[in-house]
């Protein structure tokens, strides 16, 4: 039963908006049924038991979507009717309250909605007997009006609830088919945190096709983030989860924007944070929706999170089938908001790789998979790099476990603090990478390339002449020898000097972020490294 307070607090526009969302869903499902019908044409000419079974099955699914669309399309009308009834009841209650307030002797209880007036003459009450009687009559009238409005809202609520109760899937004659142990994966059967990517891959391969779909659709939040799940499956699970999260963020952001000057300080802060999240998600959304071409391959969403500064792992190109995969680890200030900029770097390295190795398939992974320090003060500590280690190592192991050819050429590129993340990971974990590249590095946590677990001949470094990070040569970062120091033992390659700054050494922050610029020699050199070109092809600073 709806109370007076429930009615006062009710937001009928919420029902209207939910009605719109149901209507949109019904329309989408209607389209789904049509799409399936069209796609079924691809089975024309196929005969036999399997053909018959597949056709019958897909026809059943199409009919299911059709029926779902039909029933779901009835929901909006129910909700809009209820919304109208609530709006009407609220108007009547508000009118009654306004009338009572105009007669100062008539009082409406804001908790219960009961209307009252003093029964007789209290001290100081100079009303006539007639006026007392008139006030009492008005109070009774308003009390009845409010009670009737609440009763009507209750009735409308009960009718709507009953009508919705008749619109369940079972009322439409639908039921779940993909049930039973051969078709579903229960939470207890999902990969455990301590499973290696190789074990996860084995688990995945042992699932039936329907169990795999169950894992993707029902446990997408887990499947989408587990290293060792094949890239395509991981991407599908994450895209579905992404649609939910992006819609949620957009809806909340739109609501806050609509408030305008009525936003509170807290809401202003929330909107600022949501704008950052929105920018990052929008960059991912655009990348996932980009039409693939020869130079701009299909993108895959390998993980994302919106908490804190946000995370996102996006592969441009499929690492499971690529000949070469490059994982780019950004540094200080990175987060979901920097996704657009980082995806641009992925494009440019793919362009360069395409020139260096025409015909080879290269995938560029944008790995914002850790909580990066957000300013230089935070970046003075190594804890961010240490905490990122297990995740980066697991991710690289996952690439190896799911590669269809048994493993392509893998390169990790760390920029600025990202190089520290790679160094710490290689030092403290087994980092699966054939090449490591450090750009504008403040130090990687070791004093010599040989401590990184791979041949020093596959450890590369470059720091632009004007990069502000060189100022650190005079202020130790505390993360070991600089990778461009000769004593470090890495292969140093050339980068353009970069934008000149102020002061005696011309250092600038701009030069710290120009390694991926087109025409920059560092980008050309990275293209050679990620495609496995011989070290003699690299240009070096002394040339």
């Amino acid at each position, binding site marked *: 039963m709806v109370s007076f307070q429930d009615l006062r607090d009710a937001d009928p526009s919420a029902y209207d908006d939910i009605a719109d969302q149901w209507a949109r869903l019904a329309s989408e499902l209607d389209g789904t049924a049509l799409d*399936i019908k069209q796609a079924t044409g*691809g089975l024309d000419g196929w005969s036999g038991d399997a053909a018959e079974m597949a056709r019958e099955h897909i026809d059943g699914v199409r009919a299911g*979507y059709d029926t779902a669309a039909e029933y779901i399309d009835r929901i909006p009308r129910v909700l809009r009717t209820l919304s109208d009834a609530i709006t009407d009841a609220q108007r009547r209650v508000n009118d009654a309250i306004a009338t009572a307030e105009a007669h100062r002797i008539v009082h409406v209880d804001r908790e219960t909605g009961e209307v009252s007036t003093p029964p007789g003459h209290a001290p100081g009450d100079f009303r006539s007997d007639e006026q007392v009687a008139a006030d009492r009559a008005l109070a009774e009238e308003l009390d009845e009006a409010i009670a009737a409005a609440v009763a009507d809202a209750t009735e409308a609520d009960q009718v709507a609830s009953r009508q919705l109760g008749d619109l369940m899937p079972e009322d439409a004659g639908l039921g779940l088919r993909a*049930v039973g142990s051969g*078709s579903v994966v229960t939470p207890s059967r999902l990969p455990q945190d301590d499973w290696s990517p190789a074990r996860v891959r084995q688990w995945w391969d042992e699932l039936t*096709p329907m169990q795999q779909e169950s894992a993707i659709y029902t446990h997408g939040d887990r499947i989408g983030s587990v290293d060792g799940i094949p890239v395509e499956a991981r991407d599908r699970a994450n895209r579905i989860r992404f649609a939910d999260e992006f819609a949620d963020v957009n809806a909340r952001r739109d609501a806050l924007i609509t408030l305008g000057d009525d936003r509170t300080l807290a809401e202003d802060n929330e909107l600022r944070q949501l704008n950052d999240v929105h920018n990052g998600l929008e960059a991912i959304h655009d990348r996932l929706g980009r039409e693939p071409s020869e130079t701009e391959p299909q993108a895959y969403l390998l993980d994302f999170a919106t908490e804190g500064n946000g995370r996102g792992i996006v592969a441009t190109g499929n690492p499971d089938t690529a000949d070469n995969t490059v994982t780019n680890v950004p540094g200080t200030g990175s987060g979901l908001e920097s996704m657009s900029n980082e995806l641009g770097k992925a494009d440019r390295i793919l362009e360069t790789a395409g020139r260096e190795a025409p015909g080879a398939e290269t995938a560029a992974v944008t790995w914002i998979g850790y909580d990066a320090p957000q300013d230089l003060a935070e970046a003075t500590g190594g804890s961010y790099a240490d905490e990122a280690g297990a995740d980066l190592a697991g991710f690289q192991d996952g690439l190896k476990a799911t590669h269809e050819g048994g493993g392509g050429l893998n390169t990790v590129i760390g920029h600025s603090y990202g190089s520290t993340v790679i160094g710490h990971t290689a030092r403290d974990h087994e980092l699966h990478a054939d090449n490591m590249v450090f750009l504008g590095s403040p130090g990687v946590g070791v004093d010599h390339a040989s401590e990184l677990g791979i041949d020093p001949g596959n450890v590369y470094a470059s720091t632009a002449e004007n990069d502000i990070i060189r100022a650190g040569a005079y202020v130790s970062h505390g993360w070991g020898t600089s990778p461009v120091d000769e004593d470090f033992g890495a292969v140093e390659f050339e980068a353009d000097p970069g934008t000149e700054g102020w002061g005696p050494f011309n250092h600038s922050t701009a030069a710290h972020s120009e390694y991926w610029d087109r025409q920059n020699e560092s980008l050309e050199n990275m293209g050679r490294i990620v495609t496995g070109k011989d070290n003699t092809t690299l240009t070096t600073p002394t040339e």
Partner: protein
Amino acid sequence: MPDGFEVDQLVSLAEAGERFVEIADAAAGAHAEFTGAVQRHDGANSGFATTGRLATLAGMWGYQLDDLSKRAATTGGLLQESYGSYEEMEVAVIDSLDRIGSGGGA
């Protein structure tokens, strides 16, 4: 080639499979979008029976649409196997779909 399916038609079969997976994912995405969009109304109209009923309704349809997507994508995934071996795909289709049964109804 078993049951008269020509080699040059395998590509169209596999492409249809890919399309079924895309369609299933798009439907699941539409439902996820729906869920995300209505989420901001959590807590609104809590005193109304309809609100509780709506949550149940959304949950039940969620399961149902999940089920339909799984079935469409499974069929699509199986058909994509014809890129590799038609014979293996045929066996997998019969084995997997027989277990699920057909029809959109209960």
